[in-house]
């Protein structure tokens, strides 16, 4: 231990406590700055017109972001449709098989998947879905065609990003359930799949749901995988086989453009995106508290 008077050591202890407190609360400052700045810039841009119109060309004031809103919702809907069943089933598999070689490798792969940079997922989705060429036969006509940028390829890329979060939260929630629950159901002669669907999933629904919501919150703000898949689209489109705009893509494209009109659109879109993500996160917190799940 250091040599020094007791007074000096106690003073030093208090000094470091103050220092730690100051540094800890300094972390909050940038977040508050960002929130404040985005709200201040965005709030004046948002009105009914902004929500129901497509962006205007450069030079014309006004315009809105309906194409990005519709696109974001549609892309996220389809990724959730893909990722939630697969994720929950894989999570159940991991919680039911604590040991075993496949379970070990599966768990490792989920960990790896969680750390993969989103841009790499974008590259891979590009080569799996956008790039492959297929041939259409119409009578004697044969057309070679590449699938091209499409909303569905973006959905698949985002689904890959959702998977680890859904799997992890499902596994962690189900692991905590007492095994007597399952054993009681088995003792009554209930088949395995019905035990899972009627007992295990209903009991663990809080944890599973919060994992799903967290994963949706995470992919809502993802831009990098969409650059090479959904690609963006200045017009309103509902077709999942065609390029589609999404909120983060619109923010990225318009924020880096030199035009003030477009930047204003990006500020409004940022505020909407931020509110969306924060609301999802906060409601997940409330769910977690209500069901007392541990994540």
């Amino acid at each position, binding site marked *: 231990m250091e040599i020094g008077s007791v007074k000096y050591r106690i003073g030093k202890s208090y000094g470091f406590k103050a220092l730690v407190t100051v540094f800890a609360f300094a*972390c909050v400052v940038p977040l508050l700055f960002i929130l404040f700045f985005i709200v201040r810039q965005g709030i004046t841009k948002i009105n009914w017109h902004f929500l129901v119109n497509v962006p205007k060309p450069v030079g014309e004031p006004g315009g809105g972001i309906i194409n990005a809103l519709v696109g974001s919702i549609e892309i996220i809907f389809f990724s959730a449709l893909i990722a939630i069943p697969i994720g929950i089933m894989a999570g159940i598999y991991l919680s039911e098989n604590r040991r075993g070689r496949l379970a070990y490798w599966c768990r490792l792969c989920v960990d790896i998947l969680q750390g993969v940079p989103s841009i790499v997922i974008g590259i891979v989705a590009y080569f799996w879905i956008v790039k492959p060429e297929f041939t259409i036969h119409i009578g004697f006509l044969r057309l070679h065609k590449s699938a091209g940028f499409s909303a569905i390829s973006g959905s698949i890329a985002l689904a890959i990003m959702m998977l680890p979060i859904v799997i992890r939260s499902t596994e962690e929630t189900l692991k905590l359930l007492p095994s007597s629950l399952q054993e009681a159901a088995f003792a009554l002669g209930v088949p395995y799949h019905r035990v899972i669907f009627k007992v295990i999933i209903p009991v663990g629904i809080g944890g599973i749901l919060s994992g799903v919501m967290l994963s949706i919150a995470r992919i809502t703000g993802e831009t990098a995988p969409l650059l090479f898949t959904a690609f963006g689209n200045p017009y309103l489109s509902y077709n999942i086989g065609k390029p589609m705009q999404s909120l983060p893509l619109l923010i*990225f494209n318009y924020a880096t453009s030199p035009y003030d009109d477009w930047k204003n659109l990006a500020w409004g879109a940022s505020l909407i995106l931020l509110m969306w993500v924060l609301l999802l996160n906060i409601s997940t917190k409330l769910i977690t508290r209500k069901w007392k799940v541990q994540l």
Partner: protein
Amino acid sequence: METSVENSGVTRSDLPLRVITSTPGAIAKAQSRVRRSFRQIRTENVFRQTLTIMGLLMVILVLGILLTLIVQSMPSIKALGAKYLWGKTWDPVQDVYGALPFLLGTLASSFLALIISIPFSLAVAIFLGEYFPNGWIPDFLKNTVELIAAVPSVIYGFWGLAVLVPIVRTFETHIGVSAIGQGIFTSSLILAVMVIPYAASLGRSMIQMVPSQLKEAAYGLGATRWEVIRRVVLPYTRSGLFAGILLSLGRALGETMAVTMVIGNTSLMPTNIFAPGNTMASVIANEFTEADKPVYLSALIELGLVLFLVTVVINVIGKKIIDRVTND
């Protein structure tokens, strides 16, 4: 009626003999019951298999990602070989591809970000883990720090572009380097904010796991609060804190959008930390859709492959450390 139920290993004839009045109706009823339980068993097996396939799917997915990256970067690996990694010039027009500027840009921005963020994430971890584990103010701090991770990176980028870049530009004019504003330093600042939550939340749970006997023994010897933290808590949690920092590093290396928006995007070798540059992720984001030559595209994918391998190694090591620490 001689029906054998395979799974239980019990045949009907093993059961105590009972006299059943076998009307055709009763037989039909019994048969349908047997058929139903067979159907249940079949569904059960199919369900078990589906679960296993889903588990297998994750392994296939990761192997598929690795394989796709390797196959697609093959043209560049063949054409450029290993000197790709330390070539200093990146000039797609002349067909010269050297990734060193991007490797340097990635390493410089990530490590600078780590150095800036460590004091803060450590402070949050100590504050929440040791000084104030309960109460509404620590709860508020914990939730706010978690929200830092929730803000989309494109919003960090936009904010950085609008607010941070002018501030850094003024700062650069004051210290007398070329005042561009966009550059490695700016992106490190943004990255530092973005990676705080990862190290902080892991560090907090590690610090809370320190056995209270150890701390109480130190207090009993007359140690002050700070001496306990410095001599007992931090050494005990050293590897856990290291794992947290490693996970932060993994995040920082792969972060794309915020960095792309504020780093300046030039393929020249960065000369100092204020110079504009490019990271591996940002160059992919910028040039992937513009790559018109097969080797160009494949050189970009090779960057993705390097990025993938590095983050896999970092995450696996971090995970192993966490597993070892939590199982002890």
